[in-house]
């Protein structure tokens, strides 16, 4: 690869024959096109997808607002103010107030915090359990895979809503309970994705090379195989979030989730429905932001999938 033109037959090698390359000098691609790493390529495809980027910016907006609005806002989400109930949106309460005089803007963004927290936690737990379980299933294969897969299948065949509701009966309804309940069956999908990926990757040369150098199973799985399976894992993760957010809102709406005075979009929609004929803003704002969030995560996840696997894009 050096620039020396003569590669012939002098008996002695002298230092002049070699040209030192600088440590980070790049060998130019002959076609003149900048070579892109896989991740740059993916990012380029993602950025050029307008719908996905819209979703991305909505997520950023909602996350930033969820963090900062409750800090900046002069109101808080739980103090009742009975002289100021059911005010329509105005200068001091941009989204109006509810039946206890609480600021709907403040509560909407407190609800956003809960939704995003639930979404992230559910995704994180799914990720950890799914990678460990799926990684082991896929790597070892054979009997181990069969037994573990059967177990996952049985768990998966139990309807998700029933597990969640049963757990909520046994444990107190709270945020933790919701997250635990969602995690019990939530990770299985991720485990299957990881399993499929690992099965494909484990016979690749680099995995074999690592194995022949004496690396253990755990090292091969987590150092070599998982990073290469990151695409499908990330996509699954992104699409887990809107489901988790919806489930939390759904349970809170039914009165089985987050309890008052904590604000959640689900409880706010429940309250809003009861009052919608007279005070529609109490329904409008939580409903709007719940839909926006779910929409944003879905289109972003779709875009991510297309970016990782352009073949899938139709």
């Amino acid at each position: 690869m050096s620039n020396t033109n003569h590669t012939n037959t002098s008996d002695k090698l002298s230092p002049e024959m070699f040209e030192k390359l600088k440590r980070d000098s790049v060998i130019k691609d002959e076609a003149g096109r900048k070579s892109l790493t896989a991740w740059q390529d993916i990012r380029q495809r993602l950025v050029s997808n307008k719908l996905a980027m819209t979703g991305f910016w909505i997520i950023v907006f909602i996350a930033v607002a969820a963090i900062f609005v409750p800090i900046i806002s002069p109101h808080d989400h739980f103090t009742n103010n009975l002289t100021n109930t059911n005010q329509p949106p105005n200068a001091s309460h941009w989204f109006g107030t509810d039946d206890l005089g609480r600021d709907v803007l403040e509560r909407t963004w407190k609800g956003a915090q809960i939704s995003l927290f639930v979404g992230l936690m559910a995704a994180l737990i799914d990720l950890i359990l799914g990678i460990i379980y799926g990684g082991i299933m896929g790597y070892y294969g054979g009997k181990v895979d069969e037994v573990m897969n059967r177990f996952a299948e049985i768990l998966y065949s139990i309807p998700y809503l029933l597990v969640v509701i049963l757990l909520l009966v046994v444990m107190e309804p709270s945020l933790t309970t919701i997250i635990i309940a969602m995690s019990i069956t939530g990770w299985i999908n991720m485990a299957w994705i990881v399993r499929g990926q690992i099965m494909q990757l484990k016979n690749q040369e680099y995995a074999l090379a690592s194995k022949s150098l004496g690396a253990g199973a755990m090292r091969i799985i987590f150092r070599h195989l998982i990073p290469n399976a990151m695409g499908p894992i990330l996509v699954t993760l992104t699409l887990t979030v809107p489901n988790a957010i919806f489930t939390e809102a759904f349970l809170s709406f039914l009165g089985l989730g987050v309890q008052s005075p904590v604000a959640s979009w689900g409880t706010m929609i429940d309250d809003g429905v009861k009052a919608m004929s007279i005070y529609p803003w109490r329904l409008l704002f939580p409903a709007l932001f719940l839909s926006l969030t779910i929409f944003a995560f879905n289109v972003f996840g779709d875009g991510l999938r297309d970016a990782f696997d352009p073949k899938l894009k139709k």
Partner: protein
Amino acid sequence: MLRFILSKFMFMLLSLFLLVSATFLLMNAIPGSPLQSEKATSEAVQKNLEAYYGLDKPLYVQYGTYLKNLLQGDMGISMKKKFQSVDKMIANSFGPSLRLGLTAVVTSVVVGCVLGMIAAMHHRKLLDNLAMIIAVIGMAIPSLVMAPLMQYYLAFKWGIFEVAGLDKPMDYVLPTIALASGPIAFIARLLRSTMIEVLNADFIKTAKSKGLSGYVIVVRHALRNSMLPVVTYLGYLTAGIITGSVVIEKIFAIPGIGKYFVQSVIDRDYPLIMGITIFYAVILMVTRFLADVAYVLVDPRMRAGGKGAK
């Protein structure tokens, strides 16, 4: 093929058995007894009550009794609604839920397939974009947002529909839209992407070169070959509709099982919770099993005796 169906069937029974056992154990793990109340009862009365309800026996005996009764369709009596048997309550409230659920399932499949078909036929043209915009909206707006909004505008403000209830055929429109919008979007996208692939297959080219018209090709040749993923989805669709109906029944005040289910959890009415849980589980697992069987019947590769692919 028979072996595949049989193994799926055994699998269903096993899952069901596990769920029943888990439910029983969970309900027994909860501290407190249904016979406790604020009113002081004497020791003797308490003992008598326990003996009457069989609660003095060891857990495995109670479990055995429970299983035996369950097989005979006896799910015990409700704790909140005095002297009403759980199976009667379920039977009485199943009607509206079933009618609404079936309407929603049929609507989802028909409308979803039509949308997906239109989108695939006009790939990358106006109609495709239009159908996919509808699909994205349907996916994004959750039922618990869509239902109240429709109720507010279409029923309360403009008076086109009744606000609540499920008596006239017109009353089905709003709850069905709310329940079916998500699945419609999903099926449309699913069918579209499979059908685009199928439409590029050789046998479609053959059909075209025979001079068949576009619609005949799509309906007679492409649709059948694109239906497989939709068939697989049917089991999950049922689960989604049942889940959704819990919310929709609450919003539209429909006296179905979903409403009872939520109420039973809030009331901590254990026999009713267990009864409805098992009832739902049976419906879901049976539909999932039927979807598996349908899959084998539809897919010629499976009929040939191939091993069930995951």
